[in-house]
């Protein structure tokens, strides 16, 4: 069924009787060409591109709960490609381009809104780093602008310019960045993948990987064994658990990132804003809520909840940056489990086990990467070689010293 304004009108006039389930609820087949573990954004995107671009139709996504329930269902919805390093920037720019055509590609309105992002800087050192980054973006074909303090003020007059502990000196802007309706991304990919024949199997938990003679033959699940020629793992915060079933230790720790939303407010924020002197970034959703976040809690955890000190830290940053939000009320806080890697950058690679592929280590940047992650993982699964924009995301890069460390924080995941 094709979605369109005409269709909405037609259905409205006929009592909405014609709307079909957005995806089927198939029983698992005994064997698939590819099984993707994890029905989150990345897994579903992988299924979409595998089926639509690479023509593989005998594909299943197995999800232990409900699809879109991982980090794609609980994030701060920011989409951008303002990266510094050669290993990252082409990948994220590729992703941003896919975002720009996503809705038409999957025929689902994910409300991708190119409202722009501004990363504020407060010191000369930060400015220099942002100039380097902005240049890297432009040299990689992305867009970037540098604003001085007056220009920032003209665009964001409500920021704290006159009573700031760390005065705003300017900002790096990417106009093509923005936000998207996160749940809709999962649903749009799921719908498209389903239409292309992919089996999306919910409430099907992977309990083991069947590996014989170094080759992965399929997955043991709560609904029985399902065979596969190739198995791709895209389970974000649960990477350690699932790959542990294959006996692998990863350069990854699981951490919790909290996010927050305020009550609905009439429009106040024109773009995504990132504070450079505290842990706070914010945008305003189409429903009017201020959606914001900060730093991870900092300790290993699989519990999807955080604690008060970080809540306070984030709100302190928010109030320091934009004191007008003091009387806006924080409505809800939640936590998502992040697969924090050792250099803050992801991994899309084969593994030592034949037929087993890994996609993870997205830290808290996974949402914006969703399209490219899916595309590149599909490419790897289909062709057994990395997509050209994802060649740096090797599992062995820590052994060889080819880290992709945007922050320069080193091998301590909670600092990335």
């Amino acid at each position: 069924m094709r979605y369109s304004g005409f269709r909405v009108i037609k259905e409205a006039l006929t009592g909405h009787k014609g709307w079909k389930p957005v995806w089927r609820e198939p029983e698992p087949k005994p064997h698939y060409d590819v099984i993707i573990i994890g029905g989150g954004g990345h897994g579903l995107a992988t299924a979409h591109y595998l089926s639509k671009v690479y023509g593989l139709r005998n594909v299943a996504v197995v999800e232990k709960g409900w699809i879109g329930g991982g980090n794609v269902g609980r994030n701060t919805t920011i989409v951008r490609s303002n990266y510094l390093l050669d290993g990252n920037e082409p990948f994220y720019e590729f992703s941003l381009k896919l975002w720009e055509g996503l809705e038409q590609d999957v025929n689902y309105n994910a409300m991708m809104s190119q409202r722009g992002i501004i990363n504020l800087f407060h010191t000369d050192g930060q400015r220099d780093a942002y100039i380097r980054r902005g240049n890297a973006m432009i040299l990689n074909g992305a867009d970037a602008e540098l604003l001085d303090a007056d220009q920032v003020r003209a665009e964001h007059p409500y920021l704290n310019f006159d009573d700031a502990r760390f005065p705003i000196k300017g900002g790096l802007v990417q106009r093509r960045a923005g936000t998207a309706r996160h749940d809709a991304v999962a649903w749009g990919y799921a719908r498209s993948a389903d239409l292309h024949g992919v089996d999306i199997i919910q409430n099907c938990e992977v309990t083991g990987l069947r590996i014989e003679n170094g080759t992965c033959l399929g997955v043991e699940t709560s609904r029985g064994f399902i065979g596969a020629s190739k198995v791709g793992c895209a389970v974000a915060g649960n990477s350690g658990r699932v790959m542990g079933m294959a006996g692998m230790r990863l350069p990854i720790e699981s951490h919790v990132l909290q996010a927050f939303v305020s009550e609905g407010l009439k429009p106040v924020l024109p773009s995504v804003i990132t504070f450079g002197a505290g842990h706070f970034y914010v945008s305003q959703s189409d429903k009017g809520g201020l959606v914001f976040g900060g730093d991870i809690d900092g300790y290993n955890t699989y519990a999807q909840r955080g604690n008060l000190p970080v809540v306070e830290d984030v709100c302190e940053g928010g109030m320091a940056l934009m004191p007008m939000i003091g009387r806006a009320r924080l409505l809800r806080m939640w936590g998502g489990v992040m697969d924090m890697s050792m250099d803050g950058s992801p991994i899309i690679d084969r593994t030592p086990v034949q037929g087993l592929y890994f996609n993870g280590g997205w830290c808290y940047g996974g949402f914006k990467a969703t399209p490219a992650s899916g595309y590149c993982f599909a490419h790897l699964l289909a062709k057994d070689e990395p997509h050209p924009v994802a060649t740096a995301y090797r599992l062995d890069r820590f052994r060889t010293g080819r880290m992709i460390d945007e922050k320069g924080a080193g091998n301590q995941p909670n600092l990335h």
Partner: protein
Amino acid sequence: MIINHPLLGPRDASEFTYLGDASLIDRPDGMAENAADAFYDYAYLRDNPAGEHQELWYHEAGDRSWLVVTRNTLTHEISKVELARDVARARGRSK
């Protein structure tokens, strides 16, 4: 969270700074033959367990002790807190 400091009693975790897996105590010998492999493993690979986890916390706003905290990463329940120095000695570290 509250960490029951072995010397000071219960303290708010916000007084502490987290480092990571307590396996970071087990630093390999840099002069050994296999140092490159051992250090790769030490510095980069983690068990990352969903369950009991021994981990290093530093009492930054307190007595500056490094602690080994045994905490469940699913429930956050803390079952044991030890001075890291004692743990390090017990694991055979000295000078």
